[in-house]
């Protein structure tokens, strides 16, 4: 479904992402993991055409560089790492913008299913009751769920999520990750997400790509990629020992 071939990103003389290639099939959830500065966010920015890159990104065999912005948005929904809102739009107004990709010209009326899709997206993310609230009054978690609802309203086939657990407490982390796991079960859908919490990556991911200094150290199934040896190379520490030590605090 998604093929990234030899993708590189350069800012000035600094090479941030170096010839990265991986594939993703439908119904798979790929976890992009690695330490800070590994180039994960830049990589997904490039996949969503947010930064200039060399190489190719193919979606269903088509190069995304040839797609118009609205067409790309119908295929790909992107959740940014942070949301810095400046005006008092209501939750519903923000979610409705997710339907922009399906809108016609200025004088065309919005497609009939827009309202239904917005209602469904609000319902899925638990934002139905605060739908009329100003986004300026929301907590970080509610804001994150508002933008997630916008993406669900967008109804794409591929979700690109940069730190979806950001600002979410443990309850909402579980709810949101369960929600995405259900979402990706439908045929024709897939998810790529940057995740720092390796436990979440292991629990929810089907595949993983481990990055370090702009390169892929390992890619494949989550079990293979998040091995003790791979993680030691990427993080320069014994992650397994650390995780077990943390877990022992609860026992």
């Amino acid at each position, binding site marked *: 479904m998604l093929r990234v071939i030899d993708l590189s990103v350069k800012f000035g003389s600094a090479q941030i992402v170096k010839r990265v290639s991986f594939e993703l099939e439908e119904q798979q959830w790929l976890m992009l993991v690695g330490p800070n500065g590994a180039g994960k966010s830049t990589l997904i920015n490039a996949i969503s055409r947010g930064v200039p890159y060399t190489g190719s990104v193919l979606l269903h065999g088509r190069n995304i560089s040839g797609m118009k912005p609205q067409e790309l948005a*119908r295929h790909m929904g992107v959740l940014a790492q942070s949301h810095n809102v*400046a005006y008092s739009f209501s939750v519903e107004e923000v979610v409705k*913008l997710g339907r922009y990709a399906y809108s016609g010209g200025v004088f065309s009326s919005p497609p009939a299913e827009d309202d239904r899709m917005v209602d469904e997206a609000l319902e899925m993310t638990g934002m139905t009751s605060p739908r009329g609230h100003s986004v300026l009054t929301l907590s970080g978690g509610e804001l994150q769920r508002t*933008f997630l609802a*916008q993406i669900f309203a967008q109804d794409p086939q591929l979700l690109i999520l940069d730190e979806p657990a950001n600002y979410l407490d443990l309850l909402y982390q579980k709810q949101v990750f369960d929600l995405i796991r259900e979402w990706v079960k439908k045929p024709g859908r897939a998810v790529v997400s940057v995740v720092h919490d390796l436990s979440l990556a292991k629990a929810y991911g089907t595949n993983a790509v481990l990055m370090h200094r702009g390169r892929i150290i390992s890619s494949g199934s989550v079990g293979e990629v998040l091995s003790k040896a791979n993680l030691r190379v990427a993080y320069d520490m014994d992650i397994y020992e650390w995780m077990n030590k943390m877990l022992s605090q609860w026992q």
Partner: protein
Amino acid sequence: MIKRPEGFSATEYILFGAVTIVVMVACVCLGSVNIPLGNTFKVIWQAVRGLSVPDELSPAVILYVRLPRVFCVALAGAGLSVCGAAMQGLLRNPLADGSTLGVSAGASLGAVTAIAFGLTIPGLPFSGTVIFAVIFAFLALVVILTLAYRLDYSLTTNTIILIGVIFNMFAGSITSLLITFAHEKVKTITFWSMGSFAGSSYKNALIVLIAFAICGTVIFSYARELNSFAIGEENARHVGVNVKRVKLLILIAVSVLIGVSVSISGTIGFVGLVVPHMTRMISGPNHKRLLSASAFSGAVFLMIADLVARVILRPLELPIGVVTSFVGSIVFVYIFYTSRKAK
């Protein structure tokens, strides 16, 4: 809880239109000499029917001084205000406006260049100021935004203000340099640069009307895209907006409209800052409502400011820029203070 319809109803538009017309009529009747309402209507009605009007009804004052002036003021107010609303949405910054960013200073520099050197377009003797103001406004906007994006991609309030101050000083210094060598045109330039609608003609009103019709259509047609920019440029890209094209078209429309307004009236500060900000408090940030509400409120605000400028020191007339800058600077401080406090 916010529950707002997407746009305004026909009744609301009729109400806005009625308020605008009432203020317009008041501005025609009031001034250094007050003219009774009945006489004003009589003169306009007779003129519309092509009949002669007795001199005791002051037809010259109504038809050739106040009416074209009020048309120019209303259209410039609507235009500047819509430009302010569009820029504040596009740059996701409530302090973005032609005057704070330095676009008006750029337009002013263009107009002063045209006046000082007597530059005109062959066949269109009045158009030199307009064309140069528009070109310089656009160039100013390109320079300012290029500098701002290089300094700080997220275009924070501090960056916007810093760049605006620097560009205003830069454009101001070149303008002063031109004035130094302008000799006999110094007086014209100085009064013009303070901002005044004195001497406005129907021709001026027509130019602003055409600019408003074309640029306003462009800006209004991108109301939905402006909503997405107001949430964030990154978000606009993610939902499928053609960010580069929309941004370029809106910036061109804004530059043309500000350039034309400045060339007709001189620099009128803060209209594009204050009016959209106050309007947003009532209409909400959705540009489908904000843009039209700003157009009406901008027209009304500037007509009242012009009226105050004409009558407060009667028979002397203040430059309108003095009134708008006085109100605007207070509101500017208020916005800046509250936005900093919110952080």
